[in-house]
């Protein structure tokens, strides 16, 4: 977004959707008219809600929804971390691996067999082309990269998201008061 001459650069906010259900992004949309206020103060430069193909450089705040479950997730989260100042683990899947992590005690091969072989009657096969391989287990974001802020919740309530974004954009350290697993 272009800026008027002489204005201070606005914080650049991005969002990323890894292995999650998009519910955290829905909760972000539930900020309703407060979104207008937040994005008066910041620019949304990347994410499922904007049409930008490449994760840009110099992102100030990035909300990461979802667990790290595949090699692509891992590649993306490492790139996001390199290009982001404040990385937020956004919601239970990013924080604990949550529902995607329910496969962890099962193992990838039995899981694939169950989904694509055992219950299939027509040409059973495990899909491989154009699909990133699953990691052995689905893990929370902070198992792979440093996380600056944790916001648990499934999904985190819009009020909590607002308070966190307000804190971050105002240069305050957010606390997670009121946030809890589940909900």
């Amino acid at each position, binding site marked *: 977004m272009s800026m008027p001459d002489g204005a201070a650069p606005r914080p650049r906010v991005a969002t990323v959707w890894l292995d999650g259900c998009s519910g955290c992004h829905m909760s972000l949309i539930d900020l309703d008219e407060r979104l207008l206020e937040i994005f008066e103060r910041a620019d949304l430069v990347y994410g499922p809600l904007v049409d930008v193909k490449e994760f840009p450089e110099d992102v100030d705040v990035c909300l990461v929804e979802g667990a790290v479950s595949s090699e692509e997730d891992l590649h993306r989260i490492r790139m996001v971390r390199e290009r982001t100042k404040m990385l937020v683990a956004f919601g*239970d899947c990013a*924080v604990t691996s*949550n529902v995607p992590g*329910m496969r*962890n*005690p099962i193992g990838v091969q039995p899981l694939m067999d169950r989904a694509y072989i055992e219950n299939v009657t027509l040409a059973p096969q495990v899909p491989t082309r154009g699909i990133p391989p699953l990691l052995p287990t689905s893990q929370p974001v*902070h198992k792979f990269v440093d996380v600056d802020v944790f916001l648990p919740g499934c999904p985190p309530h819009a009020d909590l998201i607002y308070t966190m974004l307000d804190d971050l954009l105002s240069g305050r350290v957010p606390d997670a*008061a009121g946030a809890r697993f589940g909900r």
Partner: protein
Amino acid sequence: MSVYTLTIDGKDVAGSDGQTIMEVAEENGIDIPGLCHLEGIHDRGACRLCVVEIAGSPKLAAACVTQIAEGMEVTAHSDALLEYRRTITEMLFMERNHVCAVCVANNHCELQDTAEDMGLTHFDLPRISPKADIDASHPLFAIDHNRCILCLRCVRVCDEIEGAHTWDVMHRGLDTRVQTDMGIPWGESPTCTSCGKCVQVCPTGALFEKGRAVARGSKRRRPFLPWMKVVAEERGL
């Protein structure tokens, strides 16, 4: 009966011989967290969340199973104790597969509440991800071992209040599981009276009524616990 005076967090309190630190703290409005403690059944010190410091003792003591003594100086709240309790809570989560979002006890769960009270926003300890079974053979109830924290309230209520002693414990260490009778499926138990007390006292979603959807746990709404307490007193438990 002797009366002892002692301090908890610097507050002067008194209690009778045989009372525990937990009981005296409760009577004096001092909240000590605990997940296995439940009024009306014997305490057993299983969860360790109620650990306190006692002046002159090198060890932490579980408030629910430590009796008071004259002149005792108890610290129930400190930064160090909060850190221990936070770690204990984290270990309870990491030992099994707790997924609050899809749990029948979501928002009716004492473990979930404890995590919030402790300000836990994530887990640093490694996750064990054990393979844990679900026994849904009983017509009314089911147990999901993925959500069990081994507080053993079910074992105690079944033995001490219902008198059935259907529940007990098997195996050791990380493999420890609560079991019905000698490890037979719950639905085949000849001793279970289907009274549902175990389900009512379970602090998590491990024991639940069948047919209840996510977050529909409605435990502790049935007014049987006051009755339970009366029975416990009559029997001198």
